[in-house]
């Protein structure tokens, strides 16, 4: 546990102020949301006659 904490701390220290990893994570969350909704409605289409 302590070790893990140390690790994350270390990470934030070297965090580059121009990093865009939050952006990358955000757009991928958005992408997954799109996929989930699309697949749900596609499922409805396949399920219905």
């Amino acid at each position: 546990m302590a070790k893990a904490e140390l690790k994350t701390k270390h990470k934030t220290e070297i965090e580059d102020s121009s990093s865009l990893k939050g952006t990358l994570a955000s757009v991928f969350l958005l992408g997954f949301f799109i996929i989930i909704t699309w697949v749900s409605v596609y499922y409805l289409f396949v399920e219905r006659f």
Partner: protein
Amino acid sequence: MVNSAVSKIKVDPRDAKLSMAHFYVAFIALALGGLMGLLQTLVRSGKYELPGGIGYYQILTVHGVMMGLVLTTFFIMGFQYAAVSRTAGTHSNAARRTGWIGFWTMTAGTAMAATMVLLNKASVLYTFYAPLQAHWIFYLGLTLVVVGSWIDGAAQIMTYAKWRKNNPGKPSPLLSFMAVINTVLWIVATLGVAATVLFQLLPWSLGLVDTVDVLVSRTLFWYFGHPLVYFWLLPAYMCWYTIIPKIIGGKIFSDSLARLSFILFLLFSIPVGFHHQLTEPGIDPAWKFFQVVLTFMVVIPSLMTAFSLFATFERYGRSKGATGLFGWFKVLPWGDARFTVPFIGMASFIPAGAGGIINASNQMDQVVHNTIWITGHFHLTAATSVVLTFFGISYWLIPHLTGRKLTKAMNKLGIIQGWVWFIGMVFMSGAMHFEGLLGGPRRSAFSTYGGAKQAAEWIPYQIAQAVGGSILFLGIILVLIIFINLAFFAPKGEEEFPVGEAENPQESAPMVFENWKLWLGITAALILFAYTIPFIDIIQNAPPGSKGFKTW
């Protein structure tokens, strides 16, 4: 390119006056349309009936025309006119006169169409599908709105052209460039609706010809109908790309990529109208699918936009010392209505866009076509993403133009307004989406359909929509209070017209973006490619035409 001295630049008072004229009309339309919206949700709940024998479809026509056509067109023209004046310089007297002529032409057209709707001579909804036949004055009014908007848009183009002439070899100011793209998009798109109204509906309603070709008319309408929604969306994108960064104190992520995405919108938002006609007879399924593919292309610039916006926010947050994956999110200026209100709009574009991809997915349209899901969808896109951004723009632009200040109290009220709208829309649009998946139809007054079991399942959702509609109407009242305050009563002062700077100002945009011959050429080629053959097919295989019907 845009240095800090420029940020003090004010829109010339003479230009401000014309912009404000647009905004008066837009906000009157919002008030009227908002009241109708509330009544619609109440009627649809089954607990309320309209007084005095007023028909549901008459008020629905008022709502659609006021919100979809008047509010949007007037707000956008007023905003873009000011944005061009702010970034490309004060309009010349000739350009301003052109703008006024356009404004009055649009206003006269609006008055004509509105009169006919109020006399119940045009309860044909804002899409006026033939062979429902409205009074000819309604069609003439619409023609004037469109022609007026061309003249109005010409003012922006004139000032942009003057800037280009005075600054040879330099990329134009980003905001002006975007405004002109949207105006050009609008002009190319409205050619379709102008064609059907002028050559088909007007002569037909005047009795000069007996019949109308319904599918030709619908195809021309939807050639216009899809770019119409991008015409609404692009001003919101202008705010997100160029104004929001300045408001939060950050930078535009990339000037060039912003231009590229606008060019892509121009190219791909027009040759896609068939995605509104996917379940229609008379159109070859291969051509439908082809336009579906082009529709998906227009998703790409929105994917780029999403990245740019997140990147602007993250860069800004990190410059304020935020850490971690999402730490930047917390340090955004949530107390500033000019940011928060459009931000709610941006966030709403996530479910809105996801829904749009579903609607456009060829045969999947059969699940949702003309169900109330669609209404839920465009109340996220237009009635949330777009209008909340417009409200957010108003909160600084109106005082900027009237020489007043957005006070702390009004700022607070603005933020409350944004969240009220959001909550109302979660109820209304959310319930519409679910009811639509169960098959509940759109554009329909309350009905039990003879006690059908399926229809009974829809009613609870309609009650939820009435709850949402009531909350939204409260939101409308708040906007109107703020608008009236900022236009007439707020303390005198200076409110900034924020325009962002690019992160890398030295990396100037490639001049190819300003090559209108190229982009208009590709636009025309794509349109011709997507429409020529199916359109010839439609005309050659046309059934006997339809005479007019007045079924309301």
